[in-house]
């Protein structure tokens, strides 16, 4: 039973990471490309670390805190790096396609 839970969590995490990277390659401009990695890889890493926690709790040397530490660290730092990336993209005035939303909110400096 526990093996099924760990396998489903692992497959979910791996496919979310793959979807994030496909979004990084396929999206048309930078403001859309930021969505894939910052959202999907955070969810995928959370799934993988929960699977690792269940694996070590069930088979190995007991549940440890380090998985929660890595997952909390990624959860806190992913929005900050996304914010810094979008600031530098706006500063460099990158091109965007017509249907990108929210371009009216960018201030002229």
């Amino acid at each position, binding site marked *: 039973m526990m093996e099924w839970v760990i396998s489903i969590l692992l*497959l979910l995490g791996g496919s979310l990471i793959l979807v994030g990277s496909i979004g990084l390659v396929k999206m048309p401009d930078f403001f859309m490309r930021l969505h894939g990695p910052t959202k999907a890889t955070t969810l995928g890493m959370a799934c*993988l670390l929960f699977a690792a926690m269940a694996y070590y709790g069930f088979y190995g040397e007991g549940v440890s805190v380090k998985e929660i530490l890595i997952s909390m660290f990624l959860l806190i730092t992913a929005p900050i790096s996304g914010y810094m*990336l979008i600031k530098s993209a706006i500063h460099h005035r990158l091109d965007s396609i017509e249907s990108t939303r929210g371009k009216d909110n960018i201030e002229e400096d």
Partner: protein
Amino acid sequence: MLETVILIVFAMIGVSLLLNLWRLVVGPSIPDRILALDTMYINTIALIVLYGMNMGTSLYFEAALLIALLGFVSTVAVCKYLLRGDIIE
């Protein structure tokens, strides 16, 4: 069953690392390349966690934590350099 699933997830993360490498080489602007590098850091953490599960030891989580820390700090430093032309003013 778990060994097969771990191998499949290894293949998924390898494919996504290759896609990130493609974006890192091709990427038309500099923020694209920084984003691809940041995603490669996160995928490397996933790869190390999976390798630890494959080997059956939790010895590799410190390495994963170090890579997470250095990836965040380097991303913020390079973005700061792009914004200001300087890291520490």
